């Protein structure tokens, strides 16, 4: 099976930052990333968590033990993570690289995903976690690397958001540019 460019970019970006531990709660698009890590990155340890909050707890412990952890989740799981982020990672200055597969943004079909999808950036802003959005498949590796460098140098977690249209393979650079203008809400 071929690896989508965006998924190869996530793996390359996470690896380039220096992360060798990836704690995750599965998600349909992220399955491409997990498979690629498994097949092409034998030095990366994949750690399954039962819930996103737990994933951040494990990642915090990994950092305390000297590692540079990444956490991969779907945006819906951000809600499950807030207590871990706001009462552990942020106040203790424990950084992780967050890779967030978006739901509820452009192209969403499930109304139950939309409220959190719309709120993700505002929530991250409100709790002081910076984020970047990968604007095209070719740009994913750089965006992930940028988020990771930001996180581990500032000691505040940073998220790289992967738009739903991007992970669905339906996003061309041109569409992304249009979307950015229309929504006017994307953070740099």
């Amino acid at each position, binding site marked *: 099976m071929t690896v989508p460019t965006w998924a190869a970019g996530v793996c390359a970006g996470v690896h380039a930052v220096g992360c060798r531990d990836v704690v995750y709660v599965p998600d349909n698009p992220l399955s491409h990333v997990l498979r690629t890590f498994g097949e092409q990155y034998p030095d990366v340890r994949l750690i399954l968590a039962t819930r996103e909050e737990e994933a951040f707890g494990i990642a915090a412990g990994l950092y305390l*033990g000297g590692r540079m952890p990444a956490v991969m989740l779907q945006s819906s799981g951000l809600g499950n993570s807030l207590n871990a982020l706001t009462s552990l990672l942020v106040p203790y200055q424990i950084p992780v690289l967050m890779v967030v597969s978006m739901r509820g943004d452009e192209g969403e079909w499930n109304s139950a995903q939309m409220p959190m999808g719309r709120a993700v950036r505002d929530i991250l802003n409100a709790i002081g976690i910076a984020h970047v959005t990968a604007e095209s498949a070719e740009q994913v590796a750089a965006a992930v690397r940028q988020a990771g460098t930001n996180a581990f140098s500032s000691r505040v977690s940073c998220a790289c958001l992967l738009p739903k249209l991007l992970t669905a393979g339906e996003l061309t650079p041109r569409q992304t540019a249009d979307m950015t203008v229309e929504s006017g809400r994307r953070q740099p």
Partner: protein
Amino acid sequence: MTRLDATRVVVERARDAAIVASLGHPAYDLFAAGDRPRNFYTWGSMGLASSIGLGVALARPDVRVVVLDGDGSLLMNLGSLATIGLLQPANLTVVVMDNEEYGTTGGQKTPTAHGADLEAAARAMRIHATATVRTVDELAHAIDNARRTTFIVAKVRESAPTAKPPLDCVFLKQRFMDAMERP
């Protein structure tokens, strides 16, 4: 056995182990029983002590990690038992200070007061070395004999904490990390 009695046993037996304490009374008692750089005190994130301990144990297989959890806290994150049972880090010991109540918030009874069995839950999640202990001698024996992933329910009486760790989270983190890097 009060929780402080049990905590003293853990600190005495832990030697150079990392100890991760759940917020509130377990962390207060750890500070009172013996403050040391390899103690990690949480001031929030209820439920995550065992997850944090798991992460430290995975990062540092050469260091023994002991988690001091509470029954109410563990019940907030029971999925952690499944993850620990899946990964089975041999250097991780989880001690649940089971006073059968939410001691930090006023003594409301937890489900363990009505028979909920956390040791059985751990076994069901494939943590094979488990014990429920009621005396300091039993607890000491269980800790000394932990050779693989171990889960201990310590049935304790609630006791009023006598001290609290520093509130500076960044200091607590940095001190812990520095201590983990020293032999």
